[in-house]
């Protein structure tokens, strides 16, 4: 999966317009990145990437790139 496809997946999950997310963006600046979004992220990592994501790991994500790096 390309980085563009992963970003598009995140934009869809956050219900944001295509092209609105950049890897260097801080997650704290994204209004839609709330607790429900984090739950969706856990589910998506499991369903789409076969990876278990913990709450502790999520709390360490600071930027969009941190999430992209975890996706692998």
């Amino acid at each position, binding site marked *: 999966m390309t980085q563009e496809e992963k970003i598009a997946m995140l934009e869809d999950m956050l219900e944001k317009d295509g092209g609105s997310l950049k890897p260097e963006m801080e997650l704290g600046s994204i209004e839609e990145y709330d*607790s*429900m979004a984090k*739950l*969706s992220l*856990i*589910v*998506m990592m499991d*369903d789409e990437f076969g990876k278990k994501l913990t*709450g502790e790991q999520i709390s360490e994500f600071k930027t969009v790139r941190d999430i992209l790096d975890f996706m692998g």
Partner: protein
Amino acid sequence: MFFNGKKIVVAGASGGIGGAICEQLADEGAIVILLGRHEDKLHAQLGKLKGEGHRCFVCDLSQIETIESCVGDIISECGPIDGLVHSAGNGDVRPLKMSKYPFMLNIMNVNFFSYVEMVRCFSKRGAFNDGMSIVGVSSVAAQYGVQSRTAYSASKGAMDSAMMTMAKELGTKGIRVNNVAPGGTHTSMIDDLEYANLSEESRATAKRQYLGICEPSDIANAVLFLLSDKARKVTGIVLNVDGGKMSC
């Protein structure tokens, strides 16, 4: 002992609540028939029970079509039963946008369709003794809205609705049917819920349970009451064991 020699099937026997139910039943002299997916976990639970004569049967409750055969095996080997507890459950949570049909169906299969199928099979002539009592473990999640629990809450709500109908229909056979609805209970299902730590709503709703979190033994106490002759005129109800959560 309240259940001396009584044969009680416990589906979901290796779970936190199911395990507590099995242990209390064994303490009260019951012959416990443990049902679950994982043979090793069932036998581990079996090893904790007092008394003799308890049995384990492997059954994957997500495969509804296999339940009737499993029930047949139980009746063949153990004879008609005196009680049934459905304590099996899948507590997976997902936001609505992630709750696609395959996920919803799995939750409904394990939590609801298996419950109805077990009641259907064990309420057939020859499968039960006079005075059989059936108890399902549902949840207070059926009684109020909780984010990310569309499937779970729907399955537990379906349990409660179906229970009332089954209680009325099976009353003519002298069978009682009730549900126990736990509030927040200290089990591995809760421990595994990383999500609970993420949700502000979860933290807020936990405060509503002003008597504190329940232990599996609290739920088991209620289940045993409903199974026993002390509840001989109780049928068709949902008994909340929720530390006060739904009272405020």
